[in-house]
């Protein structure tokens, strides 16, 4: 998902940090407790960001992680991930989808006890309408991008430009009824695809696959999400919304699992400034904070050992993309040398300081079958060991490196610690004789060098960029290095290899996840393995972290942070420790 949380007000954060460093900012122990008795009141207060999108409740229109997640309390998704995000579990669906042998038809059966907060039964028609609403060009849903392999979806979403945008198929008439999502009975929906999408079941966890009520949306238009009009299908329903201040949701008694939902009320308090969010936590005015929004990297060291601090690797990566079309970096040996010349342990310890994980693969851990894929790299980079200067120098020589060349590194200076990462790379690579020139820029200005819209310009050598998983399949990462991805500026390295593409195409056709992982392993080897082309140097895997009072339990146990950063609110409860 496009997580911009850390970007918000980065400058301010820096200013505020300066003041806070002066002020000091210790952490008071919230006090742990072993009691599992529930508290008298099951009211949870959680902090989220206060960006404009916080006022958006229409599921397909949401895109920030905290907004999408808040909405998951209101609208039941078809599927969710289990605790360690290793597999899907049905939620509003009764079972995992039934997949036809050719992999082109997915049949989803909805729970027969699912109903809306106004008491009406949730039906297959609601799901069909939800899909149409998400694909409607007027909705302008970012995440519609993940639905376009459904028959007729691209045509409806493109309107008059269908012929230009939907080239890989026989065009439908572009009407919403022609979308390949149909109700075969009251509880069953059939999805027809244009091509095999082995991770399609995972896409069904997204907010664009949410059942929605046609009658409510048509009656109230854009106002359908007002607390007085909204009808929800999830464990909670919207009670009130105070702009830029707070959102209150209360338990939905019509929810099928209402008996198991412990929380009666959740208040989402919008606080963008991490320092303030943390202070509110110290003062006991919030029980928990949304991942990554309450602690600045500089403060992590201070709270790291506390019981209320939770962290886990995120399914996300940071790369130094190396432009294979730029003359300086055309030789794979030179790119390999640069990749192994970077001191990753120092990068995560001294620069990002968040407990991030040094990386040696394109795909991060947490993606199912990661261990298989990782074998492809054979740890050529030696991520945990730090740089191998002699080996790097040798590779540079083999690659015919000209010591007079300078490498331009582009990065977005308004987000996270990219500037400091670039600075460290500069000093690391100077040791192997590669001179870097830093080109700080703003996130969207990167598009002026081609990033995200067209092939990245040849004059650009290195771009520092991350990738957050949208669904948990290796394809999400390996797609970044296909020839097709060059034209749209997604393949920032401009890497194009016939062999790689052939393997990739095979992976797309392989429905069995284990077989597919074997192909991914080969793809990984072609990128980061000893004989790989190293179009991008994996740097580190960021960490999700937050503060959660110890009296907040998840399924009765200590709160654990998911690699996706998502929180399932119906699993949470508050123990009696809060009352004491």
């Amino acid at each position, binding site marked *: 998902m*496009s997580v911009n949380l850390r970007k*918000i*007000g*980065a400058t*301010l954060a820096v200013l*505020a940090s300066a*003041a*806070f460093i*002066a*002020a*000091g*900012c*210790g952490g008071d122990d919230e006090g742990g407790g072993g009691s599992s008795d529930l508290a008298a009141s099951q009211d949870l207060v959680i902090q989220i960001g*206060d*960006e*404009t*999108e916080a*006022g*958006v409740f*229409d599921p397909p*229109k*949401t*895109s920030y992680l905290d907004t999408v997640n808040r909405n998951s309390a209101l609208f039941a998704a078809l599927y969710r991930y289990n605790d360690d995000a290793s597999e899907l579990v049905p939620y509003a669906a009764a079972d995992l989808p039934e997949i036809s042998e050719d992999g082109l038809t997915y049949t989803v059966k909805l729970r027969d006890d699912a109903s809306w907060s106004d008491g009406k039964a949730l039906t297959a028609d609601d799901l069909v309408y939800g899909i149409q609403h998400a694909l409607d*060009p007027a909705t*302008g*849903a*970012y995440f*519609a*991008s993940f639905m*376009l392999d459904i028959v007729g979806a*691209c045509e409806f*979403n*493109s*309107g008059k*430009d*269908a012929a*230009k945008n*939907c080239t890989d198929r026989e065009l439908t008439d572009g009407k919403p009824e022609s979308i390949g999502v149909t109700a075969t009975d009251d509880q069953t929906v059939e999805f027809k695809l244009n091509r095999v999408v082995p991770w399609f079941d995972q896409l069904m966890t997204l907010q664009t696959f949410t059942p929605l009520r046609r009658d409510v949306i048509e009656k109230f238009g854009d106002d359908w999400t007002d607390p007085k009009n909204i009808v929800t299908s999830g464990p909670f329903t919207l009670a009130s919304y105070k*702009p*830029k*201040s707070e959102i209150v949701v209360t338990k939905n008694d019509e929810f099928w699992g209402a008996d198991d939902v412990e929380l009666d009320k959740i208040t989402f*308090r919008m606080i*963008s400034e991490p*320092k*303030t969010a943390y*202070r*509110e936590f110290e*003062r006991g005015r919030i029980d928990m904070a949304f991942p990554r929004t309450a602690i600045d990297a500089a403060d992590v060291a201070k709270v790291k050992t506390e019981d209320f601090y939770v962290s886990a690797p995120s399914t996300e990566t940071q790369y130094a993309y190396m432009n294979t079309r730029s003359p300086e970096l055309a030789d794979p040996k030179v790119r390999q040398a640069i990749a192994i010349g970077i001191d990753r342990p120092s990068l995560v310890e001294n620069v990002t300081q968040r407990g991030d994980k040094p990386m040696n693969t394109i795909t991060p851990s947490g993606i199912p079958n990661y261990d298989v894929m990782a074998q492809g790299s054979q740890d050529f980079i030696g991520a945990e060991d730090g740089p191998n200067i002699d080996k790097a120098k040798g590779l540079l020589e083999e690659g015919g490196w000209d010591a007079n060349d300078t490498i331009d590194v582009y990065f*977005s200076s*308004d987000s996270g610690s990219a500037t400091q990462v670039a600075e460290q790379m500069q000093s690391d690579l100077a040791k192997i004789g590669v001179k870097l020139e830093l080109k700080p820029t*703003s*996130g*969207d*200005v*990167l*598009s002026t060098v081609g*990033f*995200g819209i067209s092939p990245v310009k040849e004059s650009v050598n290195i771009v520092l960029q991350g990738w957050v998983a949208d669904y948990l399949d290796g394809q999400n990462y390996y797609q970044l290095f296909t020839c097709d991805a060059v034209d*749209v*500026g997604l393949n920032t390295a401009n890497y194009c290899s016939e062999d790689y593409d052939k393997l990739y195409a095979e992976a797309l056709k392989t429905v069995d996840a284990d077989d597919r992982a074997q192909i991914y392993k080969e793809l990984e080897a072609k990128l980061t393995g000893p004989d790989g082309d190293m179009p991008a140097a994996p740097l580190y895997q960021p960490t999700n972290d937050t503060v959660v009072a110890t009296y907040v339990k998840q399924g009765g146990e200590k709160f654990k942070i998911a690699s996706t950063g998502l929180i399932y609110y119906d699993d949470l409860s508050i123990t009696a420790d809060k009352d004491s």
Partner: protein
Amino acid sequence: MFAYVLRRALWSVPVILVSTFLAFALVKEMPSEPFTDNPKLAPSVRDNLRELYGLDDPYLKQYADFVTDLVQGDFGLSTKPGHREVREVITETLPTSMLLGACAFAFAAFIGIGLGVISALKANGITDYVITFFATMAFALPSFVVATLWVSGKIYLPPPIGTLQFEFPYGWDSWGDRIGPILVLGLSIMPYFTRLVRSSMLEALQQEYITTSRAKGLSWRRTVVRHALRNSMIPTVINAGPLFAFVLTGSFIIERIMIVPGVADLFIDAFDSPVDSRMVLATTVLLSVLIVVLNLIVDMIVAVLDPRIARD
């Protein structure tokens, strides 16, 4: 007087028009296009979004649409995800900022002018020095530092004092909480009043008409209030207009740190890449209208204080 006000009011129209065009042109010139920084968007989705915002229309048509919408009170859609109506977002938050600004302004004016008068009357005495010292301190400390310290609840001082712990109110839920942001914002502008009033008052006190009114037998108190203070208010009022606009725009850091659900914060988010062009335009235009209107009011007040100005 009426002609004077009308003339000033008519002048505001081209000023606002020029400022909208400048704002529009500057936003267009930013090396930033919405929806291009997100490589995850499919071409059809990106096309839809560009069409939704009319980004592919010719330059002047985009400006004409913008002004036409604006005249009808429509600020268009925010280009941030979720594309909410800018007008809606602003009406949700502007009243809070106005209230915060007005309260802080009133507080600063009341205390600031009072201290300025005392300072001038006791010029070069110990009271004057104390007031000047605190005014300079408040002037020198950036409001984000004050706000952050205020919220942090801790301040580390050298031994033997050690850590000083405190709990100050902040937030916007109740008036008890609101005191925090109002005080912090008020403190940041109070010194302007104190310094302005002090210097213009000192100047006024040396004028011949003061000696004259004293010679005519007017009491010192009446002389100060009716002549010295009244005349020294003119520069204060002239400066207070822009200062009020500054309170509204300058409070964004305070709003963010002290959790005030105001509009100023939106301005920062709007500039966070990708730039939310309609939001930037709307806030810029709103602020320029505000400044123009405030200046108009200032001109009117000054005309009342010194009728000679309107006659020129």
